[in-house]
């Protein structure tokens, strides 16, 4: 316990390290269940830098929502510290916590707009909550927010008259009304269709850039994280099992959980028809199968050409996919290497030399290839 606090002090006192926007240290959360307490978060720590877009992904029930709800104390951690903007929210008395919450905006899966209020009045609500802000001042602050989310013409409508995407835009404008430094998005696009999801994500990215607001986004959809986030944490059974930049996660997922989550959108896996032909044992005419991950700057080099030239090995492309993540290309190519197994190991070490990643998957019989 003391150790963790020293870490906080150390950071605060060191002018060289910019203070992270959010720090969660050793956060655990248990809920009372029928058979005793259920651990939803287990001794979890994470850091979100100022201005970052931080994604949290996991399967349903992994504890994602509980995790972000601990950031603004909608859920109070059973133990651990939550430090937002240098302030430990877990130790604040209720009145101070309410004041600090104004610096943390939040949007929800089901929007949670007040049905009795117009669009304008919904966005004005956080300002009314702050109190002491006159009507003119409220109008002065709400109007640009409605412009920002593109709903200036809907200001006098009620939520019941809006589409899902428009409702979430109101939710975003409302979350920004108190001029927060953090925006929490709890499955904010999960109730929306793919096209609306895209436009909401674009709006969030725009807001992040324009207002330099730190965004924490929770989703069970890798597509959402891929499109919006810079950094990501993979949550499984209340623990962070993998963490890093989104690009690195796509380029080299280390855990099964991540691979499963990635499967839907990144074609890492071979198509069924090819996969069932790949065997661990080499048959007489078997060719080694390699998966090459093109990542980073090396992805732009004509690597395949050089391999063919150097090893004089015919490369048979079985499957390929190129993706752009945060504007950087990420390619995954599965090839069968002709001309003997001895080449495989040499090719892998050469790939590593290029800064690419080569993995040996098994063997495929040459006759199977021609059949495919």
């Amino acid at each position, binding site marked *: 316990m003391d150790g963790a606090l020293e870490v906080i002090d150390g950071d605060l006192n060191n002018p060289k390290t910019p203070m992270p926007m959010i720090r969660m240290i050793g956060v655990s959360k248990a809920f009372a269940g029928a058979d005793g307490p259920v651990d939803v978060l287990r001794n979890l720590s994470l850091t979100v830098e100022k201005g970052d877009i931080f994604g949290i992904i996991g399967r349903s029930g992994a504890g994602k929502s509980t995790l972000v709800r601990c950031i603004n104390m909608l859920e109070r951690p059973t133990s651990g510290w939550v430090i937002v903007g240098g302030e430990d929210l877990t130790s604040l008395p209720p009145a101070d916590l309410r004041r600090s919450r*104004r610096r943390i905006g939040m949007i929800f899966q089901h929007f949670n707009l007040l*049905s*009795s209020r117009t669009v304008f009045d919904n966005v004005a609500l956080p300002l009314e909550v702050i109190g002491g802000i006159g009507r003119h001042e409220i109008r002065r602050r709400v109007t640009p927010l409605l412009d920002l989310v593109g709903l200036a013409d809907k200001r006098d409508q009620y939520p019941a008259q809006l589409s899902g995407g428009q409702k979430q835009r109101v939710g975003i404008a409302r979350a920004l009304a108190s001029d927060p430094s953090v925006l929490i998005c709890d499955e904010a696009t999960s109730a929306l269709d793919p096209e609306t999801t895209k436009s909401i994500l674009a709006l969030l990215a725009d807001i992040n850039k324009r207002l330099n607001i730190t965004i924490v986004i929770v989703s069970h959809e890798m597509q959402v994280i891929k499109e919006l986030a810079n950094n990501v944490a993979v949550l499984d059974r209340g623990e962070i099992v993998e963490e890093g930049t989104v690009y690195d996660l796509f380029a080299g997922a280390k855990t099964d959980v991540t691979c499963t989550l990635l499967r839907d959108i990144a074609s890492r896996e071979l198509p069924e028809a090819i996969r069932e032909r790949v065997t661990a044992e080499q048959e007489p005419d078997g060719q080694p199968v390699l998966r090459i991950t093109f990542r980073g700057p090396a992805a732009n080099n004509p690597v395949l050409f050089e391999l063919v030239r150097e090893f004089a090995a015919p490369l048979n492309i079985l499957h390929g996919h190129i993706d752009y993540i945060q504007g950087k290309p990420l390619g995954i190519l599965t090839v069968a290497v002709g001309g003997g197994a001895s080449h495989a190991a040499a090719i892998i070490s050469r790939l590593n030399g290029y800064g690419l990643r080569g993995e040996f998957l098994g063997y495929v019989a040459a006759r199977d290839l021609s059949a495919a």
Partner: protein
Amino acid sequence: MSQHVIFQLLEALLETLHMVAVSGTVASVLGIPLGVILVVTGPGHILERRALNRVLGTIVNAVRSTPFIILMVAIIPFTRLVVGTSIGTAAAIVPLTIAATPFIARLVEASLREVDHGLIEAVQAMGASPLQIVRKVLLPEALPGIVAGLTITLVSLTGFSAMAGFVGGGGLGDLGIRYGYQRFQGDVMAAVVIILILLVQGVQSAGDVLARRLNKRIIDREESKAR
């Protein structure tokens, strides 16, 4: 029907309106906050106070399960304390108010429970205090339901007020019993019943219209076009 009887009918109508209006108003003033307290002190709510919640719930149930005619007699000393007399219209208003207050409280409680918990969380995340949550979320969102509940209460009060004759409170019900039943004047009885039907219909319709106007969850087509 003689002019005398018509005059009596008018006087009785005014007495009924007087009793229902005063008891309805006072019971709302007491019952709406009581309903709010019943909700917010409930398990898992914004101001959870289990013991207080249980005590209030028990009192509310006790009053609601006491037959009105018994309640009226049982609280005569209290009535005398409040209005200085145990007979007359004013004396009838006290038990009517006491009977209607827990009734309203339960109806308000039911409406407030309908408010989506997500809305409460959304304003909590904005840093709202419990009082702000009640004023800005719970009451406005539940208002259509509360209005519907108050309408039901007014209709019930009109019915209960017929028993006010027992303490000399007058009113339409009392007139109907005395002339129609005790003096076999069927036409007076019929007139009383017709006036009561019209009164109840009027109150119910007005309540329905108001509740619908206030409900922004379902926007009428015409209204939507007019915007």
